[in-house]
């Protein structure tokens, strides 16, 4: 037999491949050989075509797709997920971790801290997203939102007027039920001897209990609010009033020292993620108590909810609203405004209320979707940094493990088994980190709850939580281990064992990019931290236009107390520690006051401006130390003032386009009167809000709030005096007070809370990034021990060696700064848009942040590089 070995004669490739796949594994080798030999023979004897044909036919006949090898391989590789193998992986992984303690601690610490942050933030975000979703009918409930525009006035409201709800229900059958809720604060409750202010209460229709799920301790949801003289107490208020929660049905409670109501139910305090906050529920129908005029179409003061038959009805219903407006509202508010009005009614789903209401008046400081996104991003970033640490350190260490991998491969390990080995290591680390982070979580959660004013918990006995956490650890272990496993298991055993293998080039680019990513994130966070901090400082220290220090604010919500105001005021003024007393109707700081529409006349044209107003007495400007711009203050000596006088602020003049107050007249109590004076603009509320046009009306003896300026020398004495006088004039009434600066500080609490969170988590992100850098620097220094030794022998100084080692890292940090700056600028600019008064983002912030980043990086690296540079070259060069 004489086969020619001509390369021109190749059997058809498809047939060879087919045989490769599906030939009988026991005989495939000799069959392939025989066929190849025969093919040559056939080409010689019968020609190429015939040979191809016979070859193909033979292959087709010899295909045994289902055949399994019958002879077992004596040295077979076990399947890489075999339980024995997994046990072995874990054992080796554990030994590796123990062997490299420093490295294991670094990665473990990074992962554990990262996981803790991620879990904390996910708890926070989940809580924010789950507001009000627990109610049975949650997805069928919507709230009426109004958007009203006329003549340059614009309102976006989450409240509607009292008659709108019932009218909607009459008109549209797709609305099953309607609920109106009005919130009030500081309401006096008296039961026997006990008297106290409930911080928040609501007036609600009896349908409240069909809309929202409350847990009744006593009474039943069907009957609780049916009578206009009933009240439902929360557990908290019941305990404070009666000292118990049972046997209270039928007990009488005096509200505002005016109206007796009977307890018709006691409910458990609503969960923290319910948007309504209250301590008691009173009937909406009790007009005597709440003073809501049920037929006033243009008084927007009640949140109005609708329960639809189907969720899908919402869009259709919204489309019908222009008709509803024309039929019911246009005429009624047309009488008041007399101008063309744009009046949009929309239905906001219950689930959106918490996070998507910041555009609504009075709800600017509620939950904010932007924060949910921000915190999710921060959580993910921190996790990313921790994972990147692992990847970086694991690949950097590959040189140290190359020999191990070479030997394993030489004695028969397959790539999949090696990958399993490395993945087992990352999984083990990830689960250890999870355990550590759970311990951390338990330690941190109370503090975190205090900071965020939430009641987050993590329940480890819940199977779902356990599954989620396990899944989380698995994913983290897999994600962080996959790339190193892939890289390490790919080493060529021959090259590695020959010693011709260096890691300097391997994965260096990836490692560098990952460091850049880490420091980009850190840099963005540093910039964010500086800007957040500066904005918070700015808000705390900006002049408000009045002096809010040492001013006491005392609520006078009870009619009987309001009657004693004149006596109270004159008695208080007798003591020199009291610098001034002013009575107002409405609050400075805190909630939005009533709004009203005023008409101004100038040069024969009328302009109506809808604005917040409050009534004050003669002393208001003096007590708050508000400056006059022009004109005069209210005067007790002018008889004309007692018939009606108003002050406006600068913003009002600007809005009207008047040069000064004498340009025109204001309509007040159906008379047109001149504006008495113009006051300098002052901040009525936090710096989130712009200074709006304001009207102050003189009412020397009507009000529900007392502002008292006390002497800064002896505040406790002043406070004691005020209390004594109050209790003397109003025996048996609770005395409550706050300082005005506290009220303002309160408005920034949510900002400071979030600012604090942001700053804290930024610090952690930077910390983890530094851990990674530290590890990386350690390994670089280790790898270059010999090089450094040689350099030192040849005369390099310590400084030059340190510079050599630091240079590479600093370059990366530099790149990170370049990438991060625009991102940080954009993000922080967006954040600042939330504030009407804000700081400018100045260039030095970026310079400072950059310097900080470089400084932190240098510090981290320097420990290792100085250590390496100081090492005696004899030691590093001795062994070869």
């Amino acid at each position, binding site marked *: *037999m004489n086969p020619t*070995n001509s390369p021109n004669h190749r059997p058809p490739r498809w047939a060879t491949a087919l045989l490769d796949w599906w030939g009988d594994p026991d005989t495939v080798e*000799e069959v392939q*050989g*025989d066929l*190849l*030999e025969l093919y040559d023979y056939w080409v010689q004897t019968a020609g190429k075509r015939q040979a191809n044909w*016979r070859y193909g036919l033979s292959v087709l006949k010899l295909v045994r797709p289902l055949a399994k090898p019958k002879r077992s391989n004596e040295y077979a590789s076990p399947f890489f997920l075999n339980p024995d193998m997994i046990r072995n992986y874990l054992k080796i992984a554990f030994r590796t971790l123990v062997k490299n303690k420093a490295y294991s601690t670094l990665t473990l610490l990074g992962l554990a801290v990262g996981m803790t942050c991620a879990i904390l933030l996910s708890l926070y975000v989940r809580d924010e997203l789950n507001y009000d979703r627990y109610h049975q009918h949650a997805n069928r409930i919507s709230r009426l939102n109004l958007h009203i525009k006329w003549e340059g006035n614009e309102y976006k409201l989450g409240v509607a007027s009292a008659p709108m709800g019932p009218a909607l229900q009459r008109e549209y059958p797709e609305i099953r039920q309607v609920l109106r809720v009005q919130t009030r604060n500081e309401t006096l409750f008296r039961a026997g001897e006990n008297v106290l202010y409930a911080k928040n209460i609501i007036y609600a229709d009896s349908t409240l209990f069909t809309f929202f799920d409350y847990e009744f301790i006593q009474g039943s949801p069907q009957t609780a609010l049916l009578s206009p003289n009933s009240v439902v107490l929360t557990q908290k208020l019941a305990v404070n009033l009666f000292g118990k929660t049972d046997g209270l049905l039928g007990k009488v409670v005096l509200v505002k020292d005016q109206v007796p109501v009977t307890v018709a139910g006691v409910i458990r305090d609503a969960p923290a993620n319910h948007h309504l906050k209250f301590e008691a529920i009173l009937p909406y129908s009790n007009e005597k108590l709440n003073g809501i005029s049920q037929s006033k179409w243009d008084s927007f003061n009640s949140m109005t909810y609708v329960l639809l038959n189907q969720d899908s009805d919402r869009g259709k219903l919204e489309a019908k609203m222009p008709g509803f407006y024309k039929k019911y509202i246009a005429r009624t508010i047309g009488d008041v405004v007399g101008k063309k009005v744009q009046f949009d009614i929309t239905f906001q789903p219950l689930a959106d209320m918490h996070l998507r209401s910041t555009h609504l008046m009075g709800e600017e400081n509620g939950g904010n979707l932007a924060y949910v996104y921000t915190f999710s991003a921060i959580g993910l970033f921190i996790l990313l940094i921790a994972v990147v640490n692992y990847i970086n350190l694991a690949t950097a260490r590959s040189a140290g493990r190359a020999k191990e991998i070479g030997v394993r491969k030489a004695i028969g390990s397959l790539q999949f088994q090696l990958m399993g080995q490395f993945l087992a290591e990352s999984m083990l680390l990830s689960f250890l980190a999870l355990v550590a982070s759970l311990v951390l979580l338990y330690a941190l959660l109370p503090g975190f709850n205090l900071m965020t004013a939430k009641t987050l918990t993590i329940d480890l006995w819940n199977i779902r939580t356990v599954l989620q956490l396990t899944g989380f650890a698995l994913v983290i272990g897999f994600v962080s281990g996959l790339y190193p496993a892939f890289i390490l298991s790919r080493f060529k055993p021959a090259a590695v064992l020959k010693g011709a293998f260096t890691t300097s080039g391997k994965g260096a680019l990836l490692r560098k990019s990952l460091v850049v990513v880490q420091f980009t994130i850190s840099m963005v966070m540093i910039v964010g931290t500086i800007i957040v901090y500066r904005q918070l400082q700015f808000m705390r220290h900006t002049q408000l236009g009045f002096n809010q220090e040492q001013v006491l604010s005392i609520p006078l919500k009870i009619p009987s107390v309001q009657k004693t105001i004149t006596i109270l005021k004159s008695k208080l003024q007798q003591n020199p520690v009291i610098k001034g007393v002013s009575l107002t109707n409405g609050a400075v700081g805190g909630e939005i006051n009533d709004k009203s529409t005023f008409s101004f006349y100038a040069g024969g044209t009328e302009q109506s401006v809808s604005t917040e107003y409050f009534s004050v007495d003669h002393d208001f400007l003096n007590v708050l130390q508000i400056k006059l711009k022009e004109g005069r203050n209210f005067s007790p000596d002018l008889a004309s003032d007692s018939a009606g006088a108003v002050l406006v602020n600068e913003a009002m003049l600007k809005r009207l386009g008047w040069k000064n107050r004498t340009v025109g007249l204001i309509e007040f109590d159906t008379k047109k009167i001149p504006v008495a004076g113009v006051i300098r603009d002052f901040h009525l509320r936090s710096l989130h809000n712009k200074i709006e046009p304001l009207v102050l009306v003189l009412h020397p003896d009507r009000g529900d709030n007392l502002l008292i300026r006390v002497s800064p020398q002896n505040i406790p004495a002043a406070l004691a005096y005020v209390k004594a006088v109050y209790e003397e004039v109003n025996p048996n009434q609770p005395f409550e007070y706050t300082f005005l600066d506290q009220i303002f500080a309160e408005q920034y609490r949510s900002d400071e809370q979030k600012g604090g969170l942001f700053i804290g988590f930024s610090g952690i992100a930077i910390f983890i990034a530094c851990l990674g850098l530290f590890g990386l620097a350690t390994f670089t220094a280790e790898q270059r021990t010999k090089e450094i030794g040689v350099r030192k022998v040849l005369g390099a100084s310590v400084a030059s060696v340190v510079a050599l080692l630091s240079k590479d890292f600093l370059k990366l940090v530099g790149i990170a700064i370049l990438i991060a700056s625009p991102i940080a600028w954009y993000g922080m600019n967006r954040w600042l848009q939330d504030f009407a008064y804000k700081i400018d983002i100045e260039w030095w912030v970026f310079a400072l942040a950059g310097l900080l980043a470089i400084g932190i990086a240098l510090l981290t690296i320097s420990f290792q590089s100085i250590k390496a540079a100081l090492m005696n070259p004899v030691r590093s060069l001795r062994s070869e």
Partner: protein
Amino acid sequence: MKRAFLGEFEEVVLLTVAVLDESAYGVTVTQEIEQKTGRAVGFSTVHTTLQRLEEKGYLSSKMSGATAERGGRRKRFFSVTAAGRKALVDVKSIREQLWDALPPQTLQLMGG
């Protein structure tokens, strides 16, 4: 005693392996049969028959002789086992008995 059963083609293959002695493997067996019998036999048929004969215990095989011609693949060389020889002898003796029993005139007729 259980008699060996050999199909006609099996017998041919088994005999060919015996004829080729040391150098019997898929290719040579196929070529030998082709040349000796003038029959066009497929390689696949020969291969499966060889396998079957090995399963029946008439043939034994061992791998050896990797050559560059075959892309480094080894050959499976077959040799006839004792059972195989016995089977061949059995078949042959049966044939001979039958031939011997043939009447002379018939033999002449056929030979004629």
